[in-house]
């Protein structure tokens, strides 16, 4: 019996199985007799499609599915709205009908006895393309897929009375999410039961279920979604993909099991990307540095269609444009533009890294203009009382922003100097992120042997649910960790949940686990009281088989926050940037497992650093992706990772029984702004956008004369 599990750095208990190779990813499932899918994808960024010709030679070799086969049976993928905004009805078609809007868009699916044969057959299909001029720059697009605008407070008054107005514009590149395991799906259809079963590499089962039910207009009870072990997603496996719908369609049409295991090239060019956002930001300040108002025009390069969640990140960015500061006037506008690129969607941070970057880089610019210490400028404006309703309308539940900043300064040991060979600078970036929200579920059951089984509506794809949820359940029931078993990811076995995204698993899923266990504990104690004092859980299970309790936990958004610091060195001769060290201070409320939380911070920080140093999904002037392999898309390696000092501040959230917030994205949110500000400090100002390539910095050094 232990009562100290929560807050302990328990090692991930799922790792032994994974490290032994005993985990089971989508491609490890090898149903006998399955048909394998290869997609014919558009080689053009924009084209009209005429006939799709299937040569006679393909008969017996492969079956081909085109948009014509879907008409009237399969709808376009659904689109999710944003509060007070307009979102166009331009959902992604499952297969292209008469137009393709990005290179890599699925045009036809080929089913064959093996993936290799399917690829041979796919090559033989002739699609009649009539190329059209592509739109590759959001600013050149005249099609708005999303629009949002909010004005709050006396914005004009703030800017008129301001002693200083700082203006800046930014552009953050598109990023490929690159999970270790690419996407994939297996479909099978039981005609007798009229049940469609889909195994899918996804962040959770219920959003996939909802998406499939919608496109097939089919009751959810007639679909079973099973999510096996998943090797990462970073946001890119959140909602049903067109390819998954094709797999399910093919299974129903052929009566055979159908498998699609994506290869790396498809993953890079055809799974939805992150970022791709520009902003013009204005900040109004009093002479003493008090921030009076903010204006921002945010333009997002959304790609050719809307995936279900494409509209959301830019809206999140907009809502966070006040950052961690007490700014009472805001005028923020979002335009989501259609371009001839793969759609964007949530990618680790999902709108928050953009907001932190735009706000924090502007604050540093203001400090330079005002001749103030950037930390002092921040301190004069930090929000200090909670709950705090922002000008834009979100309510920050709790936090201690000043303490985060103080710790970040202490941990980073600021440094600034220049000599003949290099320049060195220090920068900080603060953030506040929305996390949690909506609901999550759990069932707790006492097994016949007295062990505890938790069925969770929230499921893992690398976060460590199996450990953290077991910690929560075991502590609540007063049993050992080994007495708790978790089940996830099968829509027919687990209660209806929402999913794993927005750093929400512990605050939402964990709270549901705790509530379900508490309810079960009441039942267990009632039986135990009847049986007498020494009754064990096994005795209770024997006396009252099948004891079970469920919980559905609902809450408003919680707001994690943090302060990051970076020291950057730039080599004069080449412009090469080296980040010498990073400090990461996060306030995610109460931390259930500091070891896993730190792992999340470091992983997120590595991704945030990657976006500063090397990552950028570049389309050439014709709209061809240049990032179809790792020759064209660079990721950091361990060798580029500087030391990261981490610390947690714990301001409990009042909105859930754990006091928890979210930690999955903080590193990706805080690190880019801190690194950009360190680079700016080293250069004495910064007018270039990430990634900070040696060539850009070499030019900046020569032109800026730092």
């Amino acid at each position: 019996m232990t009562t100290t599990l929560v807050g302990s750095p328990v090692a991930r208990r799922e790792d032994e199985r994974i490290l032994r190779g005993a985990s089971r990813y989508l491609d490890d499932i090898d149903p006998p007799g399955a048909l394998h899918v290869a997609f014919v994808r558009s080689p053009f960024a924009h084209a009209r499609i005429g006939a799709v010709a299937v040569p006679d030679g393909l008969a017996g070799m492969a079956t081909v599915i085109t948009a014509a086969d879907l008409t009237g049976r399969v709808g376009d993928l659904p689109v999710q709205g944003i509060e007070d905004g307009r979102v166009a009805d331009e959902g992604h078609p499952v297969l292209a009908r008469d137009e393709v809007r990005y290179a890599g868009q699925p045009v036809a699916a080929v089913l064959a006895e093996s993936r290799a044969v399917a690829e041979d057959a796919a090559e033989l299909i002739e699609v009649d393309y009539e190329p059209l001029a592509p739109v590759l720059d959001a600013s050149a697009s005249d099609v708005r897929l999303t629009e949002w605008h909010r004005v709050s407070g006396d914005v004009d008054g703030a800017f008129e009375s301001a002693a200083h107005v700082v203006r800046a514009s930014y552009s953050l590149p598109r990023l490929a999410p690159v999970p270790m395991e690419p996407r994939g799906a297996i479909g099978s259809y039981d005609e007798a039961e009229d049940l469609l079963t889909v195994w899918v590499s996804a962040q959770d089962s219920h959003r996939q279920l909802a998406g499939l039910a919608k496109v097939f207009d089919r009751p959810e009870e007639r679909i079973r979604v099973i999510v096996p072990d998943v090797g990462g997603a970073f946001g890119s496996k959140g909602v049903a993909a067109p390819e998954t719908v094709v797999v399910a369609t093919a299974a129903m049409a052929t009566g055979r099991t159908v498998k699609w295991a994506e290869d790396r090239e498809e993953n890079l060019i055809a799974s939805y990307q992150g970022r791709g956002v520009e902003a013009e930001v204005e900040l109004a300040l009093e002479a003493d540095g008090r921030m009076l108002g903010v204006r921002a025009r945010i333009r997002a390069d959304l790609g050719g269609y809307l995936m279900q969640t494409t509209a959301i990140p830019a809206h999140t960015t907009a809502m966070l444009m006040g950052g961690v500061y007490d700014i009472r006037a805001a005028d923020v506008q979002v335009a989501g533009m259609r371009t001839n690129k793969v759609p964007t969607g949530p990618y680790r941070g999902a709108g928050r890294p953009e907001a932190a970057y735009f706000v924090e880089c502007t604050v540093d610019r203001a400090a330079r203009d005002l001749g103030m210490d950037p930390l002092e400028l921040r301190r004069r404006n930090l929000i200090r009382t909670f709950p705090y309703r922002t000008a834009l309308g979100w309510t920050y539940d709790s936090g201690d922003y000043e303490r985060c900043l103080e710790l970040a300064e202490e941990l980073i040991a600021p440094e600034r100097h220049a000599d003949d060979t290099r320049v060195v600078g220090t920068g900080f970036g603060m953030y506040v992120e929305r996390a949690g929200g909506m609901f999550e579920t759990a069932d707790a059951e006492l097994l016949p042997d007295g062990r505890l089984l938790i069925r969770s509506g929230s499921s893992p794809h690398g976060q460590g649910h199996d450990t953290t949820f077991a910690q929560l359940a075991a502590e609540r029931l007063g049993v050992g960790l080994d007495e708790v078993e978790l089940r996830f990811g099968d829509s027919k076995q687990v209660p209806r949940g929402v999913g794993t995204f927005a750093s929400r698993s512990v605050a939402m899923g964990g709270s549901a686990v705790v509530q379900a266990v508490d309810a079960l504990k009441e039942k267990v104690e009632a039986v135990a009281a009847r049986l007498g004092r020494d009754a064990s859980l096994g005795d209770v299970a024997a006396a009252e088989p099948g004891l079970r309790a469920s919980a559905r936990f609902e809450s408003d958004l919680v707001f994690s926050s943090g302060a990051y610091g970076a020291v950057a060195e730039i080599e004069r001769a080449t412009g090469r940037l080296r980040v010498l060290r990073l400090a990461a201070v996060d306030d995610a409320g109460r931390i259930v497992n500091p070891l896993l939380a730190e792992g999340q911070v470091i992983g997120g920080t590595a991704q945030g650093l990657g976006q500063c140093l090397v990552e950028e999904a570049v389309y050439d002037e014709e709209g061809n992706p240049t990032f179809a392999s790792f020759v064209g898309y660079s990721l950091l390696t361990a060798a580029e990772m500087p030391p990261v000092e981490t610390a947690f501040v714990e301001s409990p959230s009042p909105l859930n029984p754990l006091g928890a917030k979210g930690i999955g994205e903080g590193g990706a949110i805080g690190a880019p702004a801190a690194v950009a500000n360190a680079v700016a400090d080293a250069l004495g100002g910064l007018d270039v956008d990430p990634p900070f390539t040696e060539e850009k910095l070499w030019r900046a050094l020569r032109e800026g004369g730092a």
Partner: protein
Amino acid sequence: MKPAPFDYRAAASVDETLPLLGLDSAVLAGGQSLVPLLNLRLARPELVVDINGVTELDYVREDDGALRIGAMTRQVALERSELVSERWPLLHKAVELVGHPQIRARGTVGGSVVHADPAAELPVALTALGARFHLRSADGARALGAAEWFKGALYTAREPQELLVEIELPAESADARSGFAEHARTHGDFATAGAAAVRFRDGGAALVLLGAGDVPARAEAAERALAGGAAPREAAALAARDVAGDHRRALCAELARRAIEEATA
């Protein structure tokens, strides 16, 4: 990413290999470049001739003062060879920068030389050391120097029926002082620029740039300047003088300077 269909033959000797070579065949050595090209369907040979069983081409030995490297020598064998580290250290420095350990464990010296990627390290080091490339075909044998061998990006003087069997470094290249410097976006990534510098025992110098063109580029004026006693920075600037693009020129000059200083130290 599955290759287009091809026939496959595994050879156990050079004599078995040679009759299989021709316009429509590709030689599979370590597979670190050919296999991705096959999977991307950018290479579509009718026949893949696997020479991994041709053990007679797997050797690194000194022969009358010269270094002889069999074409099937794995890069890791070169990396771990004491003979190479002690007497031809430039090769050791260069091979350590090739990809990652997994790549060097399979990749071969001959494969790198035949693939002739302009971003590859070994061709640059071998050029600086005055390598000769020995070829055999069913009709006979010939040997070429680097200037004749490297014709362009991914393009060499090898005829379709020829097999690269050996790389030879002349006795004069032994025990030279040398330096290798490169720049890559991330550790183990393809180099975007680089330089190899050699100061031979007889007072001569070699300087070869990586990323300054489609083939390893000898900087002959800089070599003469170095032999004549020029300072590293001066020779490096001379070497990079004609590199296209101001940043690339600065990068090449800096890397050349580092390589020369390492060779001079």
